[in-house]
């Protein structure tokens, strides 16, 4: 099991979600975050006060997946989130020690495998 954590542009979120659903990656969590990578700063002016916005709005996606799904997940995010400009974000893959599905108490692989519906 792995935790795939991606930081992406907010405006690419819809495309990324679409790509993940197509790749049958279902269980995910997103949060709106701010951060700074290698991108150049954006300058804004408020009544003569000029500021460099050092932090950019980003979206963080966290997806717990079984080993088989790590690569499809990464490929889906790459394809949908890339614009080619600085600031497209990062994907981190982290080891996961233990997963428990709260409803059933199932653990690990069983807990990150989506239920067959219908």
């Amino acid at each position: 099991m792995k935790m795939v954590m991606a930081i992406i542009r907010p405006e690419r979120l819809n495309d990324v979600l679409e790509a993940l659903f197509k790749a049958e990656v279902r269980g995910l969590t997103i949060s709106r975050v701010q951060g700074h990578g290698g991108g150049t700063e954006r300058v804004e002016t408020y009544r003569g006060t000029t500021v460099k916005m050092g932090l950019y709005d980003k979206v963080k996606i966290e997806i717990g997946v079984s080993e088989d799904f790590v690569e499809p997940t990464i490929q889906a995010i790459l394809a949908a989130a890339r614009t080619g400009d600085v600031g497209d974000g990062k994907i981190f893959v982290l080891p996961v020690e233990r997963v428990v599905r709260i409803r059933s108490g199932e653990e690990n692989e069983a807990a990150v495998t989506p239920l067959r519906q219908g």
Partner: protein
Amino acid sequence: MKKYWTLSLLPLTGVALAAGAPDTGDTAWMLVSTALVLLMTPALAFFYGGLVRQKNVLNTMMMSFGALGFVTLAWALAGYSIAYGGGNPLVGDLSLALMRNIDLSGSMPALLDVAFQGTFAVIAAALISGSLVGRMRFPAWLLFITLWTLCDYAVLAHWVWGPEGSALLKDLGAIDFAGGTVVHVNAAVAGLVGVLVLGPRKDFGRLAFLPHNIPFVLLGAGLLWFGWFGFNGGSAYGANASAGLAFTNTLLAPAATMAAWMLLELWRYRRATAVGAATAAVVGLVAVTPAAGSVGPLGAIWLGAIAAFPSFFFILARPRLGLDDSLDVFGAHGLGGIAGALLTGVFASEAWGGVPGLLEGHAQQVWIQIVAVTAAVLLSATMSFVLLKLVGLLVPLRAADREEAVGLDAVLHGEEAYPTTEGAILVLDGERRGGAA
């Protein structure tokens, strides 16, 4: 009916103070009305601003505020003369350009008419923005509305309200009390043409665009209604009986439209929505605009209720037509304006001080109204298309896809509506300004 003050035609030089004492009551009402109509443009900014996404709200509101600056000047310096100068039935002359030959004489100061009419020109241009939000570059917008005010709005105003005997549609007998065709049909058709020239937003039909602040929408609609009492009531040109009728109809017709709209929503969705109610109020206000001083109060209620239907069903169907008239300017102002203009021909009442309409046995009036609306649509469609193409040759019309994705507030204006302070680093010009902080 709008009256042209013949006194302002006299070639007076310098400021001639009050040849004949002004009527204080009339003057007071026109001063108030001018301020009320001016308020409608910031109100529209809130109405539209609430309907768009958070990343485009400032750009959307600035499209209205930009009109306050550029259109006001274009109007005062030349537009007013094109509309109200003598000339021929198609276009006014430049006898009043730069506010020459306009003084403070008359039963109310002639110069005040430049301001009063100017507020109409501003809101007309601002209305167009609702069709084009989220994709147009700001300099192109400013250039377009300035030219549009001079070449389209002022010309149509001349046709409808120009001096007796040299106004194409007025001389035909068309009724447009406060600007249903001049302001609303005109702006809506320009917006529609703009959608066809600029194309849809890049994610149109793929993403759902949700309003980011519905309380803003209600605030804007409420303030529009408030200002509209000056728009319609002021078009009586005095504190008189006609103003009283127009004022009351401005309360009754939108109320009927809202009631009809909410019932339609309850019937169709079992829920009456806030955005729907705000839209209905605007549709009703648009519809009663040409009729305000020419129909009786019951006629206004019927007119308002009937006008809900075309707009309601068009707005329902619009996304499926593949038409990115983003904030439904055509559905609300175009169809509301056309319905209002035609129904004016039906409900116009001699008993209430207008000319008789269809219900009083003068079917001809409906036909005249149809001709007037058709003329307005053709002028606006042609002019708006030519002007947008012209502006497109001079400056880029559309924001790039990347800019559209990030949001026009940050890209075109260098501001955010709701900025977070985290990560904002103060830039001091060279740090040598005597050590600020």
